[in-house]
């Protein structure tokens, strides 16, 4: 895995940090993610210790346990001086450490060691506490799912405001709505009523109303009454909506 920059990153991130490191992060019961950076200085020092052996190769060494009682799990070939990869660890619930080693013909030199990690156990433990022996009846509901993940796989999708909305279906769909806009103007200061209800007007006497238009015939008596109440006028638009 050689991608060091995120897609379309803004602003730019350092390609490298010019300092050596090897870090191991646990992903789940069997997998970890390891990332590293080897500097020229560190590599030169290693090669020097191996007398610049031309057959030298770099490996990512996987250790189980802690020295002096650790055991070698595997050596994985390492090409890049700067990179990361996922590593499979066979035994859950164990302590592991990674090491980058320069392996020569006669001997090896350790370049970097990582932090220790402990992989999750992944199942109910068989070890019982002498004074707090478990109660089997309380475990019945979990027996059916033993070996599977007990945290609900659906739950996480609701645990954030950023969940994905439903995706549009791949078919033709047609939705048509109709609205009616009534707009007009009365003498500034006059009161305007639509279907008997007062509507607000702008300072110049204009008004705009927007209605969802139902099927059938809709009648809109619009009445304006002057400020002193002496003058009145009514206009009645009639609208018919039919859908075929």
């Amino acid at each position, binding site marked *: *895995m050689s991608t*060091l920059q*995120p*897609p*379309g*990153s*803004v602003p730019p*991130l*350092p390609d490298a*940090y010019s300092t050596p490191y090897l*870090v*191991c*992060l*646990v992903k*789940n019961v069997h*997998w970890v993610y390891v*990332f590293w*950076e080897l500097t020229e200085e560190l590599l030169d020092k290693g090669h020097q210790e191996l007398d610049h052996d031309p057959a030298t190769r770099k490996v990512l060494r996987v250790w189980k346990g802690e020295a002096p009682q650790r055991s070698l799990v595997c050596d994985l070939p390492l090409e890049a001086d700067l990179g990361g990869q996922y590593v499979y660890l066979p035994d859950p*619930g164990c302590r592991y450490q990674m090491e980058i080693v320069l392996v020569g013909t006669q001997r090896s030199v350790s370049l970097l060691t990582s932090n220790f990690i*402990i992989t*999750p*156990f*992944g*199942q*109910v*433990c068989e*070890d*019982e*506490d002498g004074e*707090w022996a*478990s*109660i089997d*009846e*309380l475990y019945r*509901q*979990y027996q059916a799912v033993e070996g599977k*993940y*007990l*945290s*609900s*796989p*659906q*739950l996480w*999708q*609701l*645990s*954030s*405001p*950023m*969940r*994905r*909305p439903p995706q549009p279906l791949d078919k033709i*769909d047609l939705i048509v*709505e109709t*609205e009616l806009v009534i707009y007009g103007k009365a003498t500034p200061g006059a009161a305007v009523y639509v279907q008997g209800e007062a509507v607000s007007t702008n300072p110049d006497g204009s008004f705009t*109303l*927007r*209605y*969802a238009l*139902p099927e059938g015939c809709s009648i809109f008596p619009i009445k304006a009454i002057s400020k002193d109440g002496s003058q009145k006028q009514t206009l009645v638009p009639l609208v018919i909506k039919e859908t075929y």
Partner: protein
Amino acid sequence: MKQAKGILAIVLHAHLPFVRHPEREKTLEELWLFEAITETYLPLLSMFDRLVREQVPFKLTMSLTPTLGSMLQDPLLVERYIKHLDSLIELSEKELVRTRFQPEFYPLAQMYYELFQNSRKLFVEQYDCNLVKAFAAFQEQGVLEIIASGATHGYLPLMDQEQAVEAQISVGVNWYIKQFGREPKGMWLPECGYAPGIDRYLHKYGIQYVILDTHGVLHSKPKPRYAVFAPILTESGVAFFGRDIESSKQVWSSTEGYPGDYNYREFYRDIGFDLDYDYVRPYLYSDHRGHTGVKYYKITGQTDHKEPYCPNAAREKAAEHAGNFMFNREKQVEYLCQHMDREPIIVAPYDAELFGHWWFEGPQWLEFLIRKIAFDQETIKLGTPGEYLKRYPVNQVAQPSMSSWGYNGYNEVWLHDSNYWIYRHLSQMAKTMIELANFETNDDLIYRALNQAVRELLLAQSSDWAFIMNAGTMTEYAVKRTCEHIHQFWQLEKQIRSGSVDLDYLSALEAKNNIFPDLDYRIYRQGAAAKSLAHII
């Protein structure tokens, strides 16, 4: 009155990432906050008010993360929220006119008009624009146990530097002490993310308990006597409670859970998507169609055709579901206490935003549940993990398993092909910050730059960004935020080491990323007694 046989501990985790954007007038991200206030936090507070006034006994646990709490108290965001409400009131007034001839929608338009008017009144007049203080008041009254959380909701199991873990915890605890005037009993681990060793820092900062996903406790070593129905203690002395599967599934499950009932309001049918674009445009937060909060349809079924929402039917359904939930908890407790030599505790944690925002009827369901538990039965009572520990201080010692409540139960949501690249940078930033923390300076600008560097690091560590990248929803935003904080950190680091800080640059960052104003960079010192700095923060 008979003694209850078991305890139901409902835990509401209220969190949003720090999404304050003073540089733009309207942002989609700030809308997350506004929606959560209107649809979740105000309805919850309102519900607490009613219950207290009517002397309905209840106890809930709630976490309020520092990022959310800081935004709730930010003057700019408060002002913007009020403007947001005013625009919703204007929209709902227009809707009242527009739907006059639609008897199936007009009552709903009225409902939203009243909701928005009421929200404004509650927020401004009743709670004085300070919801953190409002929640704190309920803690003082003994009905709410508020717990702390990580500073910026950083995902602790993927921090390879112990100092980074400690800083998230210490800043989170100190923020809590400043807000609530007391030490927190419990802490919400971000994403319930735990790895062995984290408990040492929890204990160091006085945390008595945390909550893990089911398998975090169930897979502990040795096997826990009471499964997840009583806590376990680590050797460091922190209690771990495990999430109950049954009560979680009934609410959380996208297929079987209550929120999917066909009578409930459909989240995705919003007038922001349905109506004429020019009409809704002034109320949207981007140039694209989006949510306004005005929704007129119910889920109806597994179909694109949606029926108009009926609040009364939905309310009845919420009552029915609350009754069903309570009935199931009663049966559960009756079974458990046949086999346990102490009261079982059923821990039911949920994201607070589920109630009201995602599940519109959620607060109603919760209120019905609380009332039914108080008056319609005697088998279970509401309680908190803190109270349970007080009642049962002696517990089994065991080592919990690494775990989270994310998909598949471990770290893979936050360590995935979409987001693995961030950890190289976060690791180096933390290492560098530990180094920089040893600086001593009398130069005010250097001091401010060091503090701002910590803020940038803390904000880069928010688990939300990696989550969003994995979810593939607003990936561009999450990537941009992460990159900005990383870049800004390194710019500050360069300036600090050179002894020449750009005042304009620093001031701009301080103004924008203004969380934890009293932060002191020395919290990153190894062995720093950060708790003693509480008087500073």
